[in-house]
């Protein structure tokens, strides 16, 4: 297999990485909102969050992507491929991350919240300054895991017309008829990316202050 083909795979993996990273960040912001809704006591907030999670965890990502790409134009919003890909991945990972965060928030010791109440922090300040950082710390390993899962799942965004790593391997296999070599190379690239993510994750985790013990 020529180095040219490998270069093409590397170029395609830029899509894989950018789309995944952007989606994980956006998904994380949505997930915080969702988990806040899940933990509120008002069903006005809880129900929509539950329905959101049920849909985006339950329906295959491929179908979600097709719906976003092809159904939004029907109501007059014509989204470019890259936007559709990011919306799809973000919403899907938001659903999973929200569940992780819910567990994290539920594990913030009540005493830490009470001590914040005692020094006069308002509920909003408590959420932002106490609960979020601690819940984050608790769920950090799960978040790294989710990042790796999303990196792999991002291969599905080809269905809206983005030639990322897996699709590039398939396309090149369709003209060179060297699928084994191409897939092995793609696998290697995924492995290196994911190893980097895991490595960075453990570096950050060790630096995050104050794992509650």
């Amino acid at each position, binding site marked *: 297999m020529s180095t040219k083909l490998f270069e093409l795979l590397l170029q395609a993996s830029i899509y894989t990485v950018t789309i995944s990273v952007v989606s994980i960040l956006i998904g994380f912001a949505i997930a915080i909102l969702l988990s806040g809704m899940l933990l509120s006591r008002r069903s006005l907030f809880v129900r929509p969050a539950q329905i959101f999670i049920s849909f985006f965890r339950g329906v295959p990502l491929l179908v979600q992507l097709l719906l976003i790409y092809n159904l939004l*134009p029907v109501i007059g919003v014509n989204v470019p491929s890259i936007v559709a890909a990011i919306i799809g991945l973000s919403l899907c990972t938001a659903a999973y991350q929200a569940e992780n965060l819910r567990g994290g928030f539920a594990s913030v010791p009540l005493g830490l919240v009470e001590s914040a109440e005692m020094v006069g922090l308002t509920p909003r300040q408590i959420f932002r300054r106490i609960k979020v950082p601690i819940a984050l710390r608790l769920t950090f390993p799960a978040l790294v895991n989710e990042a790796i899962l999303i990196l792999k799942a991002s291969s599905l965004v080809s269905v809206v017309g983005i030639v990322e790593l897996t699709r590039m391997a398939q396309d*090149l296999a369709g*003209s060179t008829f060297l*699928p084994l070599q191409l897939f092995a190379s793609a696998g290697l690239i995924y492995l290196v990316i994911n190893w980097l993510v895991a490595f960075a994750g453990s570096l950050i985790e060790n630096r995050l202050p104050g794992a509650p013990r």
Partner: protein
Amino acid sequence: ADTLAAVKAAGTLKVGTETAFAPFDFIDAGEHVGLNVDLFNEIGKELGVKIEWVTLPWDGVFPALEAGKFDVVAGPATITKKRIERYRFTPPLAEATIAILKKAGDKTINKPEDIAGKKIGVGKATAQLDQLKEFSETLPTKVDIREYPAFTESYADLAAGRIAGVANSLPNIAFVAKQREGTFEVVLPPFGKKSYFGFIGLKDADHAPLMDAIDAAMLKIKADGRMATLQKKWFGASFDTPDSVKDPAF
């Protein structure tokens, strides 16, 4: 609204396709090339518009066509009875009649009839599958047909030795054999009833003027010999194709 008018106004014709279908659409040295690219450039010239390509996996192509993500599908697809019920096909651009791809040096298959009783791979839900089935009925022992999600996997299994051959349209396997000389070989001649490849569009009234215009352009390209030149360039030979297929063999 009239799609043709919209296309002309925008100055671009959007064409959807999958880029894993050599030699029609494929990636060579990072560039999208193939017969379709050249042919649509000519069509674009005739219509006075530029061509904009949207490439998707085959699963995503038709939902996107119906959602209006592009105006026409290159593909191409074999023109079949079932398909013309749902979609509108352009005049054929190549023959889709099938032939057998075997491992290079395989002495047991020398003509199409030699596949009797052997394991032959073919794409799932393709027109080629139907053709192979019909051919199998005419043989003394039936062919052991193996269906694959895409032809790439069937070629992989042929290389791995799980199957004795792959049945696919001659243009496609000729290209495979050329790419991997020494690994694969084409068994000639093609067999079965003749069938043809066409581009695909929507059947509704909005798209009728556009499809008519594309049809006219393609017939013009065929008439003045440009089509034959392109066929020679990509297949090494030209085909004699009808101007339209109203009653497909399958």
